[in-house]
């Protein structure tokens, strides 16, 4: 008993010592430390450096101690276009409340606003990054939180980098960020078991979201809008995409969501609107596409013949120019219980399910697949007549592609 009390007492004392040892270093133009570098040199692991309002030049300030860097009143760290701004090399660092701007840019090195290299448990929160080549660059880092940041890139067509760039990371959390005018909004390569939530990625030159070889990630509630080529994801297994919005990605090679060699994934409750192509599937297998809305896209879905065992259920298709197009007669996917606004069937038994199957591939979309310039004849009487004739007696469109139980009414969400 006594030993236990003594032990607790010692524990208490040591805690107090740590708390006392954890000092706050204040950086400001009229404070003890005038630059962050000086404060860093004087700090120990576990300290907090508080930076007062002001403009601080920061040419690749390296943080190699486990400290908390807090900005009061949004101090500015200016890279002056010469180098990176902040590099974090230690575990457990927090960077909170800064305006970081003007990195160098160029093709020889990926200059970043905030770089995290081989450091775990880092937190990057409440920062604003402006005119940065790469925004936040994580490599070989685990358990990092990137939250509430506002990133604006250079917007330059060739000289711009990625907003949030991940390379070989695990268990990263990226939430509530806004990314604009970068090359790729969010870029992942070998980033696993991560969560990407409530971000807005828009006006990026290339992709709003781009990842490869990044298994077991979750994408929830993000908005990808007006990006040069929409969203492209490749060579990945077991991803979950829920409640995301993909909109206004228009252009000749632009896709709301481009999936290439993706398998065992879930795409649910997303909204695709006003894209040239809503979702493009190439070599995808075992993907569950359920409860999504496809509104006013050019092609709601383009499903290539090398996809198999994909399942489409409870989706709404409204106002799309074409609901589905494919490039062959081979088809091993399933459509069931979707709502198609072009469905012209009837419901005699009143179970709200149409009694005749709906064939989402129209003759004309097959013709366009072969001769894209025939797009000028869209909606002409001739084409309508051909489509109707084909619907009555299918000969060119693949007989096997159909929704056996189309809904009569759209699904309210």
């Amino acid at each position, binding site marked *: 008993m006594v030993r236990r009390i003594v032990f607790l007492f010692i524990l208490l004392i040591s805690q107090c010592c740590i708390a006392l040892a954890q000092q706050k270093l204040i950086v400001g133009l009229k404070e003890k430390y005038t630059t962050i570098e000086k404060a860093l040199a004087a700090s120990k692991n576990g300290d907090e450096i508080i930076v007062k309002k002001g403009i601080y030049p920061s040419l690749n300030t390296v943080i190699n101690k486990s400290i908390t860097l807090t900005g009061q009143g949004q101090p500015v760290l200016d890279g002056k276009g010469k180098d990176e701004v902040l590099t974090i090399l230690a575990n457990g660092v927090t960077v909170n409340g800064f305006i970081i701007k003007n990195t160098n840019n160029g093709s020889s090195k990926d200059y970043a606003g905030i770089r995290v290299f081989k450091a775990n448990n880092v937190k990057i929160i409440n920062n604003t990054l402006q005119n940065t080549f790469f925004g936040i660059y994580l490599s070989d880092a685990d358990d990092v939180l990137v939250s509430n940041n506002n990133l604006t890139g250079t917007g330059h067509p060739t000289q711009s980098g990625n907003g949030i760039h991940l390379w070989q990371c695990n268990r990263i959390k990226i939430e509530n960020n806004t990314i604009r005018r970068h090359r790729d909004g969010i870029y992942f390569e070998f980033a696993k078991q991560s969560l990407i939530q409530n971000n807005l990625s828009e006006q990026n030159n290339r992709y709003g979201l781009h990842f490869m070889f990044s298994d077991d990630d979750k994408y929830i509630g993000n908005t990808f809008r007006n990006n040069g080529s929409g969203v492209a994801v490749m060579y990945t297994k077991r991803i979950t995409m829920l409640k995301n919005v993909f909109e206004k990605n*228009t*252009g*000749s090679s*632009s896709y709301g969501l481009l999936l290439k060699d993706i398998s065992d994934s879930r795409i649910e409750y997303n909204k695709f609107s*006003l*894209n*040239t*192509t809503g979702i493009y599937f190439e070599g995808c297998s075992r993907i569950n596409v359920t409860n999504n809305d496809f509104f*006013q*896209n*050019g*092609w709601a879905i383009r499903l290539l013949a090398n996809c198999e065992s994909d399942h489409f259920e409870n989706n709404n298709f*409204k*106002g799309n*120019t*074409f609901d589905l197009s494919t490039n062959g007669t081979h088809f091993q996917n399933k459509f069931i219980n979707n709502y198609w*606004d072009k469905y012209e069937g009837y419901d005699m038994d009143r179970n709200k399910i149409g009694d005749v199957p709906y064939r989402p591939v129209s003759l004309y979309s097959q*013709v*366009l697949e*072969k*001769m*894209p*310039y*025939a*797009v*000028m*004849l*869209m*909606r*002409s*009487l*001739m*084409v*309508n*007549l051909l489509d109707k004739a084909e619907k009555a007696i299918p000969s060119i469109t693949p007989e096997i592609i159909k929704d056996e139980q189309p809904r009569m009414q759209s699904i309210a969400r």
Partner: protein
Amino acid sequence: MLKVTKYVLHDIVRNKILIAYTVFLFVLSCCMFYLDENPDKAVSSLLTIINIIVPLVSMIFTTSYFYNSYEFIELLVAQPLKRTNILLGEYLGIAGSLTVALIIGLGIPICMYALNPLALTLFYTGILLSLIFTSLAFLCSVATRDKAKGMGLSLLIWFFFSVIYDGLILGILYSFSDYPLEKTVLVLTAFNPIDLGRIIVMLQMDVSALMGYTGALYKTILGTNWGIFISIAILLVWFIIPLLVCVKIFKKKNL
């Protein structure tokens, strides 16, 4: 000239066909807008119908009216009136009444349900199509004396422009699909007023699809203000040239 127009208008109002046409258009567009929850989809259905009905009715109504009032025209020619004025007066009366029918039958429902640029574009192209096909019908009826022949000719023209022409283009595309045909298609479609009208509306409606593939090319050529100006100019040419030719024939015609 305006006096002739006044007589024609009087006559047309007594004639029930045009009123039936107006009511039909009105009921149709109201139904479309009322039944479809999405006004854009209603416009797309209306586009299909307008592109068939408006040229057809313009052609048939004009030709039959012209032949029915042949005696009246002969009477007018006997008066000290310029033949150009007589013909233009007739044209104004018929084209004007068709336009009014379209304004009431399509314009009012659009104002009621979907006053947006897309629907208004449809409305303007509808009016231009009325004018164009009325003048084509005038050309048919002035060119032939026989009523059956004139009706047949005008029906043929309608059928050619709305079905055969697109079929021909599709055939050309199919047989020459190894060649780059983007510009060719563009030029070919410009020679058909129905196609051109459809494309003007489509450029606003299917923006997403048209931005893909070669559609982007058409969008960049036709979608700009300059492109729209050119396509409207071509439509105006389609309406003025047949009318001028028609006036020229009518001047020298032995009635």
